[in-house]
């Protein structure tokens, strides 16, 4: 309305010289649209097109010649490995996110209590795992986990314990990939929680102290409620990223032993790229979407309902 009114006034002041195209360009909404157009194109090109193409692929047969409807999905449902991958993806994502959040929270408290002039150094050191490309750091971990020559087993043997087949045994392999993911992802939580901690006014803690709250009650009744939104957002974000993790699992175990550590992304890669059945791989990767969507809806609704409580 306002835009129209403004352009009307302009029209009156500079009589009918302008073409229709020009007038349209003058409107604020058109300008806004034009300025966001590059982003809209990018999203269309890099997000929407691949997504729909994946849906299309999932409905084709192995040679991508024929439309087969949902038979790729029914095929997957009847395979035990698929359900194992679903289970492993969930266990992997849940455990990793919980431990990343817990460790991030605890370490953020430690760093928060470090005197300000030394804090930067600690923040920098603790961020290192997150800065190294995980494919590379996982290689280092791979050496650490090596059954015969690794540092871990060397220590275990010297402590009089028997060496562990870190990547050879199904349970230890699952433990190992989660461990590396936690090591890689915890600094992200640390930084987010540290920022959140700094935004809680000290006087709230002092007020709580005077109200009779002990250390634990101050965390429970002041820190956690004040950080609830940031916790929800980081957990959502990290769940998405962890669920879709590829590099750590691929480099460390490549899904083995006997497919026991496969997550959606690595199994989709195995079937689609390495196995040459791209439609089947696409169907596997599509499964991540509904699970993550449900998770995102719940978390975001919770954040919206509470709104921003920091007054």
């Amino acid at each position, binding site marked *: 309305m306002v835009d129209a009114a403004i352009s009307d006034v302009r029209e009156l002041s500079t009589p009918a010289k302008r073409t229709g195209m020009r007038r349209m360009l003058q409107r604020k909404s058109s300008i806004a649209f034009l300025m966001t157009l590059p982003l809209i194109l990018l999203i269309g090109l890099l997000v929407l097109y691949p997504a729909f193409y994946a849906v299309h692929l999932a409905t084709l047969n192995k040679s991508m010649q024929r439309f087969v409807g949902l038979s790729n999905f029914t095929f997957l449902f009847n395979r035990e490995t698929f359900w194992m991958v679903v289970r492993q993806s969930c266990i992997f994502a849940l455990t990793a996110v919980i431990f990343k959040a817990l460790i991030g929270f605890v370490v953020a408290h430690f760093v928060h209590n470090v005197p300000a002039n030394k804090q930067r150094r600690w923040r920098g050191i603790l961020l290192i795992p997150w800065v190294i490309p995980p494919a590379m750091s996982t290689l280092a971990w791979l050496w650490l986990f090596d059954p015969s020559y690794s540092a871990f087993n060397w220590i275990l043997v010297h402590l009089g314990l028997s060496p562990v087949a870190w990547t050879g045994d199904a349970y230890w392999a699952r433990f190992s990939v989660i461990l590396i993911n936690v090591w890689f992802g915890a600094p992200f939580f640390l930084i987010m929680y540290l920022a959140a901690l700094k935004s809680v006014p000290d006087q709230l803690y002092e007020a*709580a102290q005077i109200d009779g709250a002990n250390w634990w009650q101050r965390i429970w009744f002041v820190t956690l409620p004040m950080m609830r939104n940031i916790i929800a957002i980081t957990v959502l974000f990290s769940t998405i990223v962890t669920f879709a993790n590829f590099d750590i699992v691929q480099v460390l175990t490549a899904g083995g032993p006997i497919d026991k550590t496969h997550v959606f992304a690595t199994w989709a890669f195995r079937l689609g790229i390495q196995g040459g059945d791209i439609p089947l791989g696409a169907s596997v990767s599509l499964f991540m979407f509904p699970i993550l969507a449900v998770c995102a809806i719940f978390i975001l609704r919770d954040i919206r309902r509470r709104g921003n409580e920091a007054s």
Partner: protein
Amino acid sequence: MAQVTLRKVVKKYDEVEAVSAIDLDIADKEFVVLVGPSGCGKSTTLRMIAGLEDITGGEIAVDGEIVNDVPPKDRDMAMVFQNYALYPHMTVYQNMSFGLRLKHFPKEEIEKRVQEAARILDITDLLDRKPRQLSGGQRQRVAMGRAIVRNPKVFLFDEPLSNLDAKLRVQMRTEIKRVHQKVRTTTVYVTHDQVEAMTLADRVVVMNRGRIEQIGAPNFLYHSPATRFVAGFIGSPAMNFLPCRLEQAGDGLNVRLSDSIAFAVPAERVQRYRPAAGKELTFGIRPEHLTEAKTNGSKNLATFDAGIEVVEPMGNETMVFFSISGTEVCGRIDPNAGARVGASMKMAAHLDHMHLIDNASGRVL
């Protein structure tokens, strides 16, 4: 209900001494105000009483029991902060009941106390709201409510009115006084505003540079300041200070302000001032004791002529500014006295209310 005692309390930050060995006895149910300019150590003192700051030296006792090492949560004190420090994620009711819930009071008791406090503070309608939905004055009331429901031994206020606008500040000041008259609890109140200190306190503690300058009832401090700092800090507009010389004049003494202006010291004060005769001193007098010369002149009035430079009408009174040997002086006169800028006016100094201050020690003689 408690007495609070501070004995030689010291607070040092590294090598800087914020509070230097202060002694203070606060009686049961007394309303004590710590007042002073920023950085004088008043807030630090309050926070040490609360237990939020460690004590470097000395001791703090509540009811005779030393609480130096008792954590704040076990001191049974309630504090109202400058920015209220309400928990933003809790409703007003939850904010007020938080302390009681932590101490596992029965639900009915909590309900009773919160409702009672809400009634006293007139915030019953706000109990379901979140702090962000409240105005500054309402938040202030909730913060006080949170303190009242605890029924603590001591109330601590840390500049509670500084964030309010001028009108609300006056209103809440009265409110705090009213609440204290209803809920008689030992109260320590910190402010930098001497008007707040004067209006609220049973006793005012004036602090400066980590030390206590003077302790006394508001009117006593006003009329009998012990030091130049107190004399200048208490009262608005501030007391006038003029360099002067105390001269021997026969049996009496003269205060010489300039070559042309000299007053005879009132006879009853001659004895007191005699030891300082011949010294360079500072002459202090409040603006209300520099008035227009009236015909029905009472005792101990010294009249002189002043060239009026600035006139500030306030309605009920008028401030006039003039110079005495280069120092600007403020007087308070009757609005009908006919002060005009540029005109000369006959002024009278009420010497019963004069102060003489020793320049070296800063003490009032």
